[in-house]
């Protein structure tokens, strides 16, 4: 039952987000403009991290990385 509620809330949240109902005006985005707010602020660090985990964890990768799945050959 709890799982069903969680699913309903997740779907509701996703639909709300996807429909663009949440609108933050341009003049209130100063904090959001900070480069550190970006999810991938440094491409080199992202590459280092992606390669490190995709060659050591079977459940990492799956995001276009060449091998992964425990194959440490790349």
């Amino acid at each position, binding site marked *: 039952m709890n799982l069903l509620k969680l699913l309903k809330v997740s779907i509701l949240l996703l639909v709300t987000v*996807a429909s663009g109902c949440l609108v933050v005006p341009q003049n209130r985005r100063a904090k959001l403009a900070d480069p550190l707010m*970006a*999810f991938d602020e440094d491409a080199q660090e992202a590459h280092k991290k992606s390669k490190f985990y995709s060659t050591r964890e079977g459940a990492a990768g799956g995001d276009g990385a060449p091998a992964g*799945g*425990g194959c440490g*050959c790349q």
Partner: protein
Amino acid sequence: MARQRAAAAGASSLVKHALFIASLLASALFSVAASAQGFSNSEILGVPAGIELESIRVRFTHFDQTGRGYQSQADRPNLHRPGSEDITIEQPQLEIVAKQGKATHRLSVPVDIITAASPDALDAVSTASRVNEAGNFQLDTRYQQDRRTAWLFHANFHLEEPFRSWTLGVGGAHAFAEDNTVFAWSLNQVVDWLDRFNIFGTRLGRGYRSTTNLNVSLTQLLSPTTVGYVGYSFTFQTGELGNTWNSIAVDMGNDKIELDGEKLPSVRHRHALVARLSQSLPWDGILKLSYRFYVDSWSLIGNTIEAQLYQRVGRHLYVRANYRFHHQTGVGFFTAIADVAAPLRTADSDLAPFVAHTVGGLIAVNLKAPRLRDLHLDFGYERYFRSNDLSVNIYTCAMGFLF
């Protein structure tokens, strides 16, 4: 009647010729007039877009790994005990970002210099070469069609001693709802060629692997201080999905155990669902949270939680503390000692059930320098350790010139 039609056709042809000659004359007159006024081609047509350098970054990372795994033959005391997974990697990286009109190009060249207990199949039986090198050439181009729509192109070439890999990718991003929401997608195709070896180091020819990957994501501004992200990734892999020389102890019966190669499926479907949150904090800090759920057709289920806390100290300095927790169930056919009749088998410690932690920190400074927008420096340390005997110390530093 026929004469009238012929006359009309002749008149029409004459008019067409007259118009053509008139347009030629007009064009010639315009050119003469333009040259008389001293207009150059670039003044008339516009200046062609040049390449403008945005940044150059170099990063150096040192990985120091110790641990043991059942797939390794290095320093293995007996078949009931795991072999060494000790390895050190030096990873220099170069990145150049340049702008050309509406396009932004990013060229990355990371190189791995690996010194390992057993970096390739030949070292399974000899220690002739314990150093291996790997290099990547990666080009990413983002074409900003207009304020809301961007196109992404990705090409990558990976070069390693027994391994070659080519990647081509295309994607797009579209902002809507007053730029509050960004929908992005990408499609990548990877082709790998690798030399196949058995566990004794004998080359068995060439293998291949194909990876097709689709990603979709939605980024949403949730408040003036919060950004949310949800993404889904599907990957289909087929071909040789191991490195071919991973070994496994096999129970042959009658208390006889022998070393043999692992047996993996030739197809793998992988699904990953990611949710992220980036929250600006009132004290000049930023908190980033991430959760990733992973499941694949090898019965592997993974859960990963990550937190990063940034704190600005003055205008030019910031520090970061980060923690990552990862749990995976292991593939259905993982075992330390396999039955001889098992159709699938692996002893790869990376495919085993385990819990992993990463803790680390970073200090970064952005300085003003002559002729530069910023001079970026950072130093970081991370420690990765997991429940099945593997730990890695990671030291990194970077220098960036932002023009």
